[in-house]
């Protein structure tokens, strides 16, 4: 895929946010907050960083792969997949509806291109990503495996089982990004179950940790992912702490857990869309 300029990529971010809001609004269910906060990450990954093939192949041989461990960000992922050519943009309107390939949380048995495993029950994606990464190592396939986890998700024990495995086996073809927005469904992570010093935790587990402090600044996100890529192949797994704001892009949604799992009503949708330019055409 030909690389696009920063302003062009920014336009995609705006459209992705519109897609997310319209999707969750249409069915009055879903999770808008986190995908709004991860728009820059999704766009940087799919439109700039990944060497990937929208002619989908399950085994992903020779391609960079992405796994969404925090499956409730599905609206954002579906939007970026559709916008990068995995399936028709029109199909976004079936999100969370009966007989749709766009299940509430990502799933495979409807065969939606781009999805390789179900996620939603938290804490499982890193293990899966490591399994594919291990396969790539066996086959001398030098492509990279990305996985996104929520910060609240790190409260799941399985994540740390996987973290230990990754360092032990030198899984240096894995880039795990943590959506570090400090929010979870019941409130701020600090209050619910304090994650304390995540950088030190991952380092203590044997990971190379980078921090992307401006997770809603596209240039910073791309620079962070490029730095992460430059650290692959050096014997250690890479953790990208991506500081984002939940609900970013809409002034009344930003920085609070209130929009983690609540859709906007008609009035709120209109207000929100007024702040987000329609750049690629709504679905």
């Amino acid at each position: 895929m030909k690389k696009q300029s920063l302003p062009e990529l920014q336009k995609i971010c705006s459209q992705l946010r519109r897609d997310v809001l319209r999707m969750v609004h249409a069915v009055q269910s879903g999770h808008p907050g986190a995908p709004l906060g991860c728009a820059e990450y999704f766009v940087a990954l799919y439109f700039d960083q990944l060497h990937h093939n929208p002619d989908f192949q399950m085994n992903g041989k020779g391609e960079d792969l992405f796994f969404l461990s925090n499956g409730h960000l599905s609206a954002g992922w579906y939007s970026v997949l559709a916008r990068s050519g995995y399936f028709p943009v029109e199909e976004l309107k079936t999100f969370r509806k009966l007989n749709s390939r766009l299940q509430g949380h990502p799933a495979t048995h409807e065969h939606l291109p781009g999805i390789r495993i179900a996620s939603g029950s938290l804490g499982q994606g890193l293990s899966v990503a490591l399994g594919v990464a291990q396969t790539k190592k066996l086959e001398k396939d030098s492509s990279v495996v990305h996985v996104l986890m929520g910060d609240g998700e790190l409260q799941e024990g399985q994540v740390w089982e996987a973290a230990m495995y990754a360092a032990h086996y030198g899984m240096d073809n894995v880039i795990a990004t943590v959506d570090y927005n400090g929010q979870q469904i019941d409130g701020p992570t600090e209050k619910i179950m304090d994650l304390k010093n995540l950088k030190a935790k991952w380092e203590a587990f044997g990971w190379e940790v980078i921090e992307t402090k401006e997770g809603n600044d596209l240039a910073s996100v791309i620079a962070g992912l490029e730095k992460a890529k430059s650290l692959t192949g050096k014997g250690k797994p890479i953790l990208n702490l991506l500081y984002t704001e939940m609900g970013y892009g809409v002034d009344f949604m930003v920085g609070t857990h209130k929009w983690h799992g609540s859709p906007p009503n008609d009035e709120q949708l209109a207000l929100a869309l007024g702040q987000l330019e329609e750049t690629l055409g709504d679905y």
Partner: protein
Amino acid sequence: MSLDLKYTYTEKKDTRSGFGDGFLEAGRRNPKVVGLCADLIGSLKMGDFQKEFPDRFFQTGIAEANMIGLAAGMALGGKIPFAGTFANFATGRVYDQIRQSVAYSDKNVKICASHAGLTLGEDGATHQILEDLGMMKMLPHMTVINPCDYNQTKAATLAIAEFEGPVYLRFGRPSWPVFTPADQKFEIGKAWKMIDGRDVTIFATGHLVWEAVVAEAILREEGIRAEVINIHTIKPLDTEAILESVKKTGCAVSAEEHQLNGGLGDSIAQTLIRHNPAPLEYVGVNDSFGESGTPTQLLEKYGLNAENIVKAAKRAMARK
């Protein structure tokens, strides 16, 4: 008194060794076969594979949830992963991981579960899972297999390597009669009528197939001709074979090293009640945990041996 057994044995071996030897052979036949184990390589008999194919084997440490996720990832990358641990940790501990990452996602993962049931013995109830078949058979997409001896376990292991889809393979620890042929062909989902009968059918799975063979000989001495059917595949269940046999015998016994709730007997009952209601008696563990003891002592105390199958057969016949 020596019984006139229709099947005999010259040696006893553990079914887990059948798995280990089958796994090694599967690895030799197909380079896509890989192995994972959560710190129980010796117990699962996976060491020979690890020695021969060190690059294709992954020790995961005591972290079963991660192991299941890894296996799912390897499967989607094109490998055929065999993930091994004790049946307790291979099911109850990781049910959600199996449900989401393996069954719902339809990944070609082979969950290999040893030390299942009471015959694990002295370790006691913490390790003696008796609910695993039920949990696994409830999962859509999952194939559930519980072979009866060393040879059948080896044959099953080779068969699942060639089968595309998630599989739960259950086997055990005790030294057990090897009474089925080494060269058997294992057909997933196809029940095996081991002994022809006319008065009652004994549907047995796992270690209790041997007890069923012994029970048949005891019953025959009393003039009762029991049919013995080896249900090595719990799911998909060979309902055709079940219905055909019960049509002839008119009553049945199920025998399994598992809870009655959710076990093989439940599946058979469901089949019979729908198509041919007939008396069915159960041999299994009745809503209780196990305890420490030798395998033989435990099978006796919890009513899972040949003697209990004989009694159940008579009860079933009396209800005809």
